C-alpha cells in the first residue's frame, strides 16, 4: 500500500508541475496587467496544435519543435496584444474578463473550423512513452518520462522567468510596472512595451506547456478547458503575480487532486481542489505569495 501511495504522490507532483507551467504565464499576465486571461487554455490548445502539426507535416519532434513553437506563440501573443488586449486593458474589469472568455470561445471554434474536432495524439516521438522504474522504500515505482520532461520543463521555465524578473533590468522594469503603472511610467519605463512583453511572455509559456504536453496528451479544440480552471486555481492559491507562487500552487493542487482522488471519491477530486482553493482564498485573500492585488 505504501508503494501505491508513493506512486500517487509522484503522480501528483508531476501533474502539479504541469498545471504550474500553464499557470505561470497566467500569473505573469495577471501580475503585470491585472487581466484574468480566460483564453489561456485556448492558447495552450493552439500551442499543442502547433507542435502537433510540426510533427505531422514536417516531421519535427516536439522537443525540437519547442524552439519553433515558443517564439511563434510569443509572436502570436504580440499580435493579439496589439489588436485586442490594448483595448481590453483599458476596459472595466468585468468587460475584460468576458472579452477574454469570448476570445477563448472564438479561438476554440476557429481550431474546430480549421482542424476539425478529432482527438489527436502523437505516436512516435523521441521521448515515446518511456518509463523509469525507481525503487523507493523497497517498492517499485514508475515515472513516466514524457511527464517528467513536462514537469522539468515547467521547473526550468519557472526558474528562467523568475531569474528574468528578479535579475535583469527589463525584468525589474516589468515588476515596477506590475506594482504601479503610473509610477513606473514616471520613472521612464515604457509601460506599454512592458505590457506587451508580459502578455507575449505569458503566451510563450503556454506554448512551452502545449508543446511538452503533446508528448503524452490528447490534442483537440476543447482541450484547454481541462487546464485553464486548474491553472486559475493554482495562480490564486500561489498569489496572483507571483511566479514561484504559481509553481507551488500548481504542485499543491496536483497533490490534492492525486491524493484526494486516491483516498476519496475520484469523481469529486476536482470539487476537492476547488473547495481547498475557496478555503485558502477566504483565509488568505492574497494567496500565499502574492505581490499584486
Amino acid at each position, binding site marked *: 500500500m505504501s508503494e501505491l501511495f508513493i506512486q500517487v504522490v509522484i503522480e501528483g507532483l508531476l501533474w502539479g508541475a504541469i498545471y504550474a507551467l500553464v499557470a505561470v504565464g497566467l500569473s505573469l499576465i495577471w501580475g503585470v496587467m491585472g487581466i*484574468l486571461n480566460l483564453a489561456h487554455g485556448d492558447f495552450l490548445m493552439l500551442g499543442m496544435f502547433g507542435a502537433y502539426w510540426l510533427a505531422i507535416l514536417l516531421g519535427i519532434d516536439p522537443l525540437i519543435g519547442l524552439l519553433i513553437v515558443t517564439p511563434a506563440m510569443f509572436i502570436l501573443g504580440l499580435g493579439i496584444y496589439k489588436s*485586442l488586449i490594448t*483595448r*481590453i486593458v483599458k*476596459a*472595466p*474589469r*468585468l*468587460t*475584460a*474578463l*468576458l*472579452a477574454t*472568455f*469570448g*476570445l*477563448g*470561445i*472564438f*479561438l*476554440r*471554434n*476557429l481550431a*474546430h*473550423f480549421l482542424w476539425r474536432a478529432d482527438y489527436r495524439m502523437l505516436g512516435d516521438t523521441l521521448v515515446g512513452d518511456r518509463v523509469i522504474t525507481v525503487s523507493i522504500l523497497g517498492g517499485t515505482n514508475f515515472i513516466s518520462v514524457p511527464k517528467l520532461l513536462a514537469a522539468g520543463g515547467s521547473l526550468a521555465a519557472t526558474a528562467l522567468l523568475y531569474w528574468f524578473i528578479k535579475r535583469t533590468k527589463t525584468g525589474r522594469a516589468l515588476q515596477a510596472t506590475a506594482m504601479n503603472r503610473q509610477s513606473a511610467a514616471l520613472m521612464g519605463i515604457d509601460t506599454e512595451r512592458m505590457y506587451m512583453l508580459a502578455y507575449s511572455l505569458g503566451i510563450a509559456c503556454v506554448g512551452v506547456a502545449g508543446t511538452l504536453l503533446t508528448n503524452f496528451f490528447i490534442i483537440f*479544440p476543447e482541450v484547454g478547458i481541462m487546464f485553464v*480552471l486548474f491553472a*486559475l*486555481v493554482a495562480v*490564486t492559491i500561489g498569489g*496572483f503575480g507571483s511566479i514561484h507562487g504559481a509553481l507551488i500552487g500548481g504542485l499543491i493542487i496536483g497533490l490534492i487532486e492525486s491524493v484526494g482522488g486516491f483516498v476519496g*471519491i475520484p*469523481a*469529486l477530486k*476536482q*470539487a476537492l481542489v*476547488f*473547495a481547498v*482553493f*475557496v478555503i485558502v*482564498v*477566504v483565509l488568505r*485573500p492574497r494567496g500565499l505569495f502574492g505581490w499584486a*492585488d
Partner: protein
Amino acid sequence: MGRLKPLMVRQPRIFWRKNYIFALAFALLLALPFIFTAHFQHHVMIKVLMFTFLGCAWNIIGGYTGQVALGHAAFFGIGAYTSSLCYIWFGLNPWFGMFLGGILAVAVSAVINYPCFRLHGRYFAIATLALGMIIRLLFTNWRLVGGALGVRLPLLPESLWNFQFHTTKLPYYYIALVLCALIFAILYKIERSKLGFYLRAIKESEEAARSLGIDVAKYKLVAMSISVFFTAMAGTLYAQYILYIDPISLMPLMTSILICVVPVLGGAGTLWGPALGAPILLIAIEYSRAWLGGGGRGIDYMIVGAIMVAIIFRPGGLTSFFQGPRFRQWWRRIRG
C-alpha cells in the same frame, strides 16, 4: 436652510406620451407570439425572456453592487432541482416549488457566499466560479437527486396549475413575460430606494460606503440573496419548460458566463441593460446555430465569441449609446 423645490413636475402631455410608448411596446410583446408562430420562434422568445430575467437577477449583485459573481448557473440549477424533486417526492406543486427553490438558493448562497464577500474584485469572481463548479460536481455525483442521470419530470395534463403545457409554448412565453415584468417592477423600485442607492455606493467605494453607515457585508448579502432567489425561480421555469434536467447541461460554466454577458452587453447596472443584451445575444446564439450549426464547423460559436470580445469597444454596454448628450439632444428634438 434652503427651501424645498417641488420634485419633478410631470407635464400631462409627456406623461401621456410616456405611457403611450410603454403601452405600445408592451402590446407588441403581448402580440409577438402571434406574429411569429413557429415553436422554434417561440422557443427563442422564451429564451430571450428567460435570459432577460436571469440578466436582471444577476444585475442586482453584479451590476448594481459590482460584485462579479460567476457561479449563478449553480443557483439556476438548485431552483430547477428543488421544484422538480419536491414535486416527485412530495407532490408539491411546482409554483410553490418555485418559491421553495428560491428560498433554498438563498440559504445555500448565504452559507457559501458570505465568507467570499470579504474578497475583492477578481478574487470574488474566481471564488464564486469555483463554488459554482463544486455545486455542479456534487449534483453530478449525488445519486439521491438523480446524479448524472438527471431528473425526468412526470408528464401531467397541461394546465397553469400543473405548470406544464405540451401542445403550445404560449403559456411559457406569457409566464416568462410576467416574470420579467415582475422583476422589472422590482428593480425599478429598488433603483429608487435606499437599497438601490446603497448597492451603487458599495460598487463605487466600499470604504466611503462604510463611512456613510452602510453595513457593506449585510447589503452584499441582501443583494446576493435577491439575485439568487430570482435566478432559482428561472430555474424552475426552465425545468418545467424542458421537463428534463441534468446537472451537466443545467449548470455549465457557459451558462454562468452567459448570465453575466447579457447585462454587460446591454449595460451592467442599468435597468434596461439586460432587456437590450438578451435579445441580441440570444438571437445571435440561436439563429447562428440554426443557420450555420448544421454545417458542424463551429462558425456559430465564433460569432458568439466575437460578440463577447466586441463588448470592449463599448464598455458601457449598449445602453451607453442612449446616454450621451447627443442622443439626449436628438430625443428632445423629436419630442418637440
